[in-house]
């Protein structure tokens, strides 16, 4: 695969080099709490950039990440937990024998999680892309629920609502940050390729795209599968970071967070997805005070868990009403400079 935007080769290399240096610096010198947040940010960059590919670039509104992240997380976790650790975990029923024998190294586990998600996305795309419009949103939303229901109801595989524990903590900033960089590069390359142009054509005017000979079904399916693949990998990283997963982790709230991220950053912009991730994940750490008792003008309010979510949902509505483009609009980082020099965008 060729590196995109060959004209700006230097800038690309410089940005990647700075990111790599930052990862090295952060894992060496920052305290544990900060590194944990940075790990979260890196994983959410992977998820947001890939979610943006189907939602923003291809314009097919879907609500699936929690489902695919759950699949990636469970596949990775089942492959990573050692057979000994599995033996005593299954409290509800005994696992299927083959579950106990599964074991692989981290890379294979992540990739398998990704491929599994992508395969399911391919199966889903058959019914969904037969119809136009918003059906994708509701089917993918239902899909997320089905995955959660399956995870609860197949204790032979997933240990039911107790979830899987003792996942070896493979994820560190080198893994999460490194994969985040690779993901962003791959997605930018797709966006700037022939396929990416087809995806954008589908978003802007599907009829015109068909008239121009674009295979819109193929473009949509490709975007959907690619985004599912990276969401699966992100889920695997998340499982190996948290060391324990349960079905409750992957409810609709997870998707909602990603939706706010890409809307805030600007639907269709990968740079926007990165900025949005930093603002939302960092911001929700900062806004923890909202959930706790507050002292206002001499009054002390009671603790209000969930207040952050009220603020986030209002934020989402306000962005849609007053700043629909988000921070970056559809532009990428480089186009910011272009528009300034040319002044025509």
């Amino acid at each position, binding site marked *: 695969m060729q590196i995109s935007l060959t004209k700006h080769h230097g800038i690309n290399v410089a940005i990647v080099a700075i990111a790599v240096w930052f990862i090295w610096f952060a894992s060496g010198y920052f305290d544990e709490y900060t590194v944990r947040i940075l790990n979260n940010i890196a994983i959410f960059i992977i998820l947001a950039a890939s979610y943006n590919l189907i939602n923003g670039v291809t314009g097919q509104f879907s609500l699936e990440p929690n489902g695919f992240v759950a699949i990636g997380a469970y596949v990775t976790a089942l492959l990573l937990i050692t057979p000994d650790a599995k033996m005593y975990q299954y409290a509800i029923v005994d696992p299927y024998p083959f579950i106990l024998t599964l074991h692989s190294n981290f890379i294979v586990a992540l990739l398998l999680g990704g491929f599994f998600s992508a395969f399911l996305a391919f199966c*889903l795309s058959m019914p*969904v892309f*037969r119809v136009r419009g918003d059906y994708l949103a509701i*089917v993918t939303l*239902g899909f997320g*629920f089905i995955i959660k229901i399956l995870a609860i109801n197949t204790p032979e595989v997933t240990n039911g609502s107790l979830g899987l524990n003792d996942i070896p903590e493979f994820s560190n900033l080198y893994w999460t940050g490194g994969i985040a960089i690779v993901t962003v590069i791959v997605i930018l390359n797709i966006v700037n390729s022939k396929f990416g142009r087809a995806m954008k054509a589908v978003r802007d005017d599907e009829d015109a795209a068909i008239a121009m000979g674009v295979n819109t079904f193929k473009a949509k399916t490709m975007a959907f599968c690619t985004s599912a693949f990276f969401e699966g990998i992100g889920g695997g990283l998340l499982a190996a970071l948290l060391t324990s997963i349960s079905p409750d982790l992957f409810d609709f709230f997870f998707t909602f967070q990603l939706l706010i991220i890409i809307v805030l950053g600007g639907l269709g912009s990968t740079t926007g997805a990165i900025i949005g991730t930093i603002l939302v994940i960092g911001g929700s750490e900062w806004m923890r005070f909202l959930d706790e008792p507050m002292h206002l003008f001499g009054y002390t309010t009671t603790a209000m868990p969930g207040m952050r979510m009220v603020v986030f949902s209002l934020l*989402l*509505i306000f962005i849609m009403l007053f700043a629909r483009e988000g921070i970056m609009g559809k532009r990428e980082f480089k186009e910011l400079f272009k528009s300034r020099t040319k002044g025509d965008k």
Partner: protein
Amino acid sequence: MDITIFMQQMLNGFSLGSMYALIAIGYTMVYGVLRLINFAHGDIMMVGAFLGYFGIAVLGLPFGAAVLLSIGGSALLGMFSDIVAYRPLRNAPKISLLITAIGVSFFLENAFNVFFGGVPRAFPVPTYLEEMVDFYGLMMPVSALLVPIVTAILLVVILWVLFKTKYGMAIRALAFDVGTVNLMGIDANRIISLVFGIGSALAAVGGVFWAINYPSVEPMMGVLVGLKAFAAAVVGGIGSVGGAVLGGLIIGFTEVVVIAFFPELGGYKDAFAFIFLILILLFKPTGILGIDFEKSRF
């Protein structure tokens, strides 16, 4: 399985299906005029149930008055959400409308969660609704019989409004072409708000019934019910009021009957609606009573 239990399950399915149908009508009407999946619809049903609860438990109103309060309050909330959140986006891309709807939905859920707590509250069911009646040998609580009857009455009323009144004509015209409706001297925005009001009022009735049959209210109760009701609307044929009722009944029946015959599938109850949805999209994307959008509306 003897015939009594079988009939009992059929009635249960009918009752559950009617509740889905009441909520699905709101989805299908809003989709008909705006092509919008109103994600907040399930949460408006939740607000309706809460208003009924507050009416009885806090204000001490009789049941009928509490239901009226719930209907009125929910209709106002539905119209308010349209005016504040959806009206400014009439000319925006549809994806923006969908995202706003999700925002409204999440806002309602979380605001109720923060201010009224996430713990389910027992719904004070009036005693005369809990009495058991002998219905040709079947013992049924009054409420389970009431739901299908009220749904049938409301369905007739809605169809009458849609097809026999001037407002209904405006709504059907709106579903064809908003611009032309404006040219005919009708305020399209007012009619759209009216549609939201009607849909929300029906959702409130559904919400109160839900609270009676599963006697509790909590902020997240509308999420899954709302999604299933939307699936019902698509299965029946989105854009068609009769289809919404049919889809609701089908999904309600399936949930009750499958579990009655195959109890081991109980954990998968919530997945049936979505499996139906995927199957219908595969084989007949317009739904069972799918209407040709070029020729007729609702």
